[in-house]
C-alpha cells in the first residue's frame, strides 16, 4: 500500500490539468480565428462566402486589387504597399482593395469542392465588378497572386487596365514541372521535413485549424532557394492549407502533373505589364521572369538588388517607387 501513495497525487494532478484542456480546432487556440469565427474582423460577403477584406483610399479613384501569394497565403505582408513611403501612398490616388482569397488567410474556410480555379476566378470577377463596375482595374499580384492575375487577364482581358506581377509563379504547367525540383527542399534528412513528419504524432490535419497550423512548419526552411529574410520573415496571419492543396491540384492531371495554362489568350491583352523580381531569388527570380514576361505582348522586368522572393516585403520603398513609376506612365489609360 505504501507504494500507492503517489496515486492520489498523480490523479489529482491530472484532474487539475483536465480542467484546463483545450481542443485544437477551437477558434483562436492554435491559429487566429477567421471572419466566420470572429465578427469583429473586417469582412465582405460575396458568392456565398465571407472574405477578410480591407480598403484604403477614395472609392471614386481607379481601383487596385491586390492578389496575395500561396495559394493559401494572405495579404498581411502586402499591406506594406498601402503605407506611406517618401511622402507617397498608393491610397492618395487609388482605391486599394485587399482581400484574402477563398479559404485563405482569415477568410472563411470551405471544403475542396469550392476550392477550384473556376471558383477563384469567379470570386475575383465578382470583386472587380463590385468595386470597379464598368471600369477596368489594376492588379498587383505577388507569387501565386501573379499567376492568379495572369489567369484573370487571360480570361477577362477587357476588365484589366494594367498589372504589376511581383515574382509570379509559373504561368503554365510545363514551366511548373521544369522548376518543381527547385521549389522545395525535399531532402529526407532535412530538419524541417522531419519536424513536419514528426508533427503528425502530435497534430494530424483533420480540421482547418490543425491543417493550417501544420502548414506553418515549413514557412522558414522549406524553400531555401527563395532566399527570403529569416530574421524578419514575411508575415502571414494564417495559411489556408486546403486552399493551397486543392487550387494546385486543380491545375494538375490525375498523375499530379501540372497541365494548366494561364497564357493561351494573353495576346488579347495589349496593356504594358510590369514584372518585378528580387536579385537573390533563384527559382522565381530574374531568370524565370525574363522568360515569363515574353508571354505578354508588352512587358518589362525590373530587378531589385539585395532581395529574395520576398522583395515587396523587404524592399517596400523600392518596389513602391517602381509601381508608382509604372502607374504614372499609365495614367492616361487607367483614369
Amino acid at each position, binding site marked *: 500500500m505504501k507504494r500507492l501513495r503517489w496515486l492520489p497525487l498523480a490523479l489529482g494532478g491530472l484532474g487539475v*490539468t483536465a480542467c484546463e484542456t483545450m481542443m485544437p480546432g477551437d477558434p483562436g487556440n492554435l491559429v487566429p480565428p477567421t471572419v466566420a469565427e470572429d465578427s469583429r474582423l473586417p469582412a465582405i460577403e460575396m458568392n456565398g462566402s465571407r472574405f477578410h477584406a480591407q480598403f484604403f483610399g477614395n472609392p471614386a479613384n481607379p481601383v487596385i486589387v491586390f492578389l496575395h501569394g500561396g495559394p493559401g497565403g494572405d495579404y498581411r505582408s502586402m499591406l506594406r504597399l498601402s503605407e506611406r513611403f517618401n511622402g507617397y501612398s498608393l491610397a492618395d490616388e487609388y482605391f486599394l482593395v485587399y482581400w484574402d482569397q477563398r479559404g485563405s488567410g482569415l477568410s472563411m474556410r470551405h471544403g475542396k469542392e469550392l476550392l477550384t480555379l473556376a471558383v477563384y476566378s469567379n470570386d475575383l470577377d465578382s470583386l472587380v465588378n463590385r468595386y470597379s463596375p464598368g471600369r477596368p482595374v489594376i492588379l498587383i499580384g505577388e507569387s501565386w497572386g501573379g499567376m492568379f492575375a495572369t489567369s484573370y487577364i487571360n480570361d477577362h482581358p477587357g476588365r484589366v487596365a494594367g498589372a504589376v506581377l511581383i515574382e509570379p509563379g509559373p504561368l503554365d504547367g510545363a514551366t511548373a514541372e521544369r522548376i518543381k525540383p527547385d521549389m522545395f527542399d525535399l531532402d529526407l*534528412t532535412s530538419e524541417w521535413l522531419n*519536424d513536419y513528419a514528426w508533427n503528425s504524432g502530435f497534430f494530424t*490535419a483533420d480540421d482547418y485549424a490543425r491543417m493550417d497550423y501544420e502548414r506553418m512548419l515549413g514557412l522558414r526552411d522549406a524553400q531555401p532557394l527563395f532566399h527570403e529574410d529569416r530574421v524578419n520573415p514575411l508575415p502571414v*496571419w494564417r495559411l489556408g492549407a486546403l486552399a493551397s492543396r486543392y487550387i494546385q491540384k486543380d491545375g494538375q492531371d490525375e498523375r499530379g502533373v501540372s497541365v494548366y495554362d494561364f497564357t493561351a489568350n494573353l495576346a488579347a491583352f495589349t496593356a504594358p505589364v510590369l514584372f518585378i523580381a528580387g536579385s537573390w531569388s533563384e527559382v522565381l527570380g530574374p531568370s524565370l521572369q525574363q522568360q515569363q514576361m515574353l508571354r505578354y505582348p508588352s512587358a518589362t522586368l525590373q530587378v531589385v538588388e539585395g532581395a529574395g522572393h520576398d522583395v515587396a516585403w523587404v524592399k517596400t520603398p523600392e518596389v513602391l517607387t517602381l509601381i508608382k513609376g509604372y502607374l504614372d506612365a499609365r495614367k492616361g489609360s487607367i483614369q
Partner: protein
Amino acid sequence: MNRTTSTILGVLLLALVARDAVAQWNVARFKTGRNLVYATAGLDPALVTAVGYARVIELVGHDFQFNIEGGLAAAHMDTRDFRARAGIGTSLLRWRSINLTGSATFNTRGTENLIYRGFDFGADFTGALGVYRHGWFAAADFGKDKAIITYVTQSDWYRTHYYPDAKDGWYLDAGGTFHYGLASGVALGPAEVTLRAGWLRTEKWDDMLPPMYASMGLGVRF
C-alpha cells in the same frame, strides 16, 4: 469535463493494460528465447532510430511479450524529437501456423520545431494476421496510433512573427493516424531481421506527408 475525465481514465487504463510492438516480431519464436534486445530504424513517421528490450512472460498459460523502447528522430540525431514506448503483444488466435496477433503500446513523444514545443501521451493498437513459422513470418497489419493529450508551448518565433495570442497548454484529441501494411521477418540463428512497411492515414482517412512508414528491425533472442 465528462470528455476530459473519460480521456484521462482512458490514458490510465491504457497504461495499465498496455500491449504492443509484436507486429514487428515473430510470435512463433517466443519460446526460443525469453529475452529480446532489438533496434529498429526507418521512416515512422519521420526518420527514427530506436532501441528496445522485450521479455516474454507466461500469464495464465499464455505467452505475452512486454517491451520498452526509446527512439530519436534520426535526422541530425535531434534529441528534442523523441519517443518512449511500453507495450505488450501476444497471439490472440492461432490455427496451425496462422496467427492473429494483437498489441497495444503506451507512447509518450516529444518534439521541438519552428512553431511549438510539444509533449504528448498516446496509445497504439495494432492487429496482424499472418503466417508465423519458426524461421520466418509474413503478416498484414492494421492499427491506430492516437495522441490522447498533448502539452504545447508555442515558440517565440511563432508568437513574434505570426500569432501572439496562440495558446499554450494541454490539448485533447489533437492527433491520430491509422496505419496499415505488411510485416515480415526471417530468423538467422538467435537473430531476427524484420521489415515493416505500409501506409498512413489521418483519422478522417485523409492522406498524409509522408504517406507511408517503413522500418527495419534487428533483434537477438536469448
